[in-house]
């Protein structure tokens, strides 16, 4: 086995992103959370830094790096603002659908501006009836006179205000009567397409989540990604790897926040004449938080490394996501406990960490969904 070590470039990238985050994000993160404000103005800045198109090849305006580097960016950003983290991770999600499945013309048309951050991307799959029941989608797409007419409603869509939306819809049925899905690129301003209501979320509030309404949305025929029938594959692949990788990275960022806040508070808080970090009870908590952070981090970068090596990593991302989100909830609660009364005061970020961690669970499939995926993989892989 090779020793797990980031390359010199990856270390430099982390340092560079951290500098950006500490200057442009950390001072404002609490305010964004309080005001439920998504800092769209940072997308062009992240574009200049190459963060938007971190895993996109240079010919489409990206940085030409991979998913390990993407995880580094998301971890660093989410250390201070998990909300902006999910807005960015969703931007990546839509871009991944285009990069991995769209035609050369589509890539050339959309990816450069998305990399620049002058346009925002999103992926609309989930419907009121549920997110994980892909085939049970109600949104339909019908080809009429050279246009796809899309009808339906998507909900819990992060970046529902995106300029470029990848939307899945039922295009018909196969011979067994099962739904066939298509994935479509729907641009903002398309007739019949609109942002629906915006949710008032518990956490991840520096991102916008809401409905996408399709009412005879008139999408040019060439805007289908791949062909009718490939939508399920596209949606599953993007969410399964890019989506879960993103959520894991966000929670690894939250976990590092927990470690740092716990250490800082317990070393500064003096009780009975010495810092509470000298107390064993506090040290047990700190050990647990650190362990949660390190394990989540290992799982994340291991899975991302596998993806960059073009190895199947769906189960690995499910494990990473399941562990990281639950660990983030656990550890932010522990950090709050350790802080006593201070923990619930909003001047400290820990309450936000807990809310963000909780809000991270459903995105990309709840923990129960991840367990099902992990179990399915385990039962087939370990069969005698």
């Amino acid at each position, binding site marked *: 086995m090779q020793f797990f070590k980031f390359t010199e470039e990856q270390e430099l990238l982390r340092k560079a992103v951290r500098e950006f985050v500490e200057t442009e994000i950390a*001072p404002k993160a*609490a305010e964004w959370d309080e005001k439920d404000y998504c800092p769209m103005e940072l997308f062009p800045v992240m574009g200049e830094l190459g963060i938007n198109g971190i895993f996109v090849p240079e010919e489409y305006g990206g940085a030409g790096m991979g998913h390990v580097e993407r995880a580094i960016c998301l971890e660093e950003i989410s250390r201070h603002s998990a909300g902006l983290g999910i807005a960015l991770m969703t931007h990546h999600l839509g871009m991944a659908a285009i990069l991995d499945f769209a035609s050369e013309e589509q890539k050339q048309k959309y990816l450069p501006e998305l990399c620049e951050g002058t346009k925002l991307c999103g992926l609309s799959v989930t419907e009121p009836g549920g997110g994980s029941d892909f085939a049970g989608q109600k949104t339909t797409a019908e080809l009429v006179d050279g246009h796809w007419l899309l009808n339906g409603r998507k909900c819990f869509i992060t970046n529902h205000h995106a300029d470029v939306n990848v939307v899945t819809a039922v295009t018909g049925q196969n011979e067994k009567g099962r739904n066939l899905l298509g994935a479509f690129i729907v641009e903002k301003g398309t007739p019949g397409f609109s942002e629906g209501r915006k949710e008032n979320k518990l956490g991840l509030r520096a991102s916008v989540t809401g409905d996408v309404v399709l009412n005879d949305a008139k999408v040019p025929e060439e805007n289908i990604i791949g062909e009718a029938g490939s939508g399920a594959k596209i949606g599953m692949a993007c969410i399964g790897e890019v989506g879960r990788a993103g959520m894991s990275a966000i929670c690894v960022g939250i976990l590092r926040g927990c470690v740092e806040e716990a250490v*800082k508070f317990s070393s*500064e808080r003096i009780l009975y004449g010495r810092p509470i970090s000298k107390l064993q009870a506090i040290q047990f908590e700190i050990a647990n938080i650190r362990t949660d952070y390190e394990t989540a981090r290992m799982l994340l970068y291991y899975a991302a490394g596998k993806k960059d090596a073009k190895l199947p990593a769906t189960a690995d991302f499910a494990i990473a996501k399941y562990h990281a989100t639950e660990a983030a909830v656990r550890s932010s609660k522990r950090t709050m406990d350790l802080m006593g009364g*201070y923990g619930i*005061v909003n*001047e400290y970020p820990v309450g936000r960490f807990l809310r963000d961690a909780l809000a991270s669970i459903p995105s990309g499939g709840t923990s129960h969904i991840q367990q099902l995926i992990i179990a399915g993989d385990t039962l087939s892989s370990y069969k005698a």
Partner: protein
Amino acid sequence: MNKIWVFAEQVECSLDRVVLELLTKAKELAREMAGETEIAAVLLGCNVESLVESLGKYGADKVYLAESEELKLYNPSIYAPIITELVKEEDPDIFLFGATAIGSELCPTIAAQLKTGVAAHCIDMNINKDGKLVATVPSFGGKIVGEILCPDTRPQMASVKPGIFIQGEEEEREPLVEKVEVNINTENLPLKAISLNKKEIKGVPLDKAEIVFCGGFGLGNKENWEKLERLAGLFGGAVACTRPVVDEGWAPGEHLMIGTSGKSVRPKVYIGFGISGATHHVCGIKDSGLIISVNNDEKAAIFEISDIGIVEDLNKVLDQLLLKFS
């Protein structure tokens, strides 16, 4: 005869405070040196002869006076060669500069021309048993200080920030004035000083502020914090605080917090109100030029690391300051 020189920095015919502080220190050093010691000020400018009197009063036995229209505005390309030539002729043992913007440029420039050493930003100076200057200089943000000697080359040069040494009492002394001939051709100099602009400022960020009003837990309430903000506005300074002030919600956030877990500042002046003086806070202010503390507890540790202390109810001091300056 030993010679200690002080660069008599003037701008618009007004001496920088640090010159008088350095002359005072030069007198102390002269007393530590064996044998007779002459203290001289080096004064460059245009129509600046009137400054000779106060240079004498604070310790100059002699003033080297270089006057010319070309010297009206400071310019290192003109000032440095004049002074370097003078040093070569007169061979002083010690040459002190204020670590002001001008001094911080001129001093190393002249040192490079003379190929001698400078102790920069000294916080202390004395003469050792060999008659040599031992200067104490800070490094690592003041966490470490070290002695600097310049054993083999002359002059032994040093720069000192304003406010480090204390200006002494005036004495009657008529310094000998020695005019220095200025014959520098400034016609084709590649560096031209165009103008000097004195400026007013408005609110400045904490780490750039020259005066910082810092509140501790002793503030007692948010109203006093707001008074601090008003004062900072009036003085063109910034507000800052300690951890409990953030914790109590009086201050808007941690970005204003000074200490090991917050910011380190080095303003010219720091005024602390109701601050106890815990080490982690002190670390963040130790490089401030002047530390003034207001606390009603005369035993507060903060007084030990302050230049000036006021044992008084901070409410009263705040109100008096606001009354005076609003």
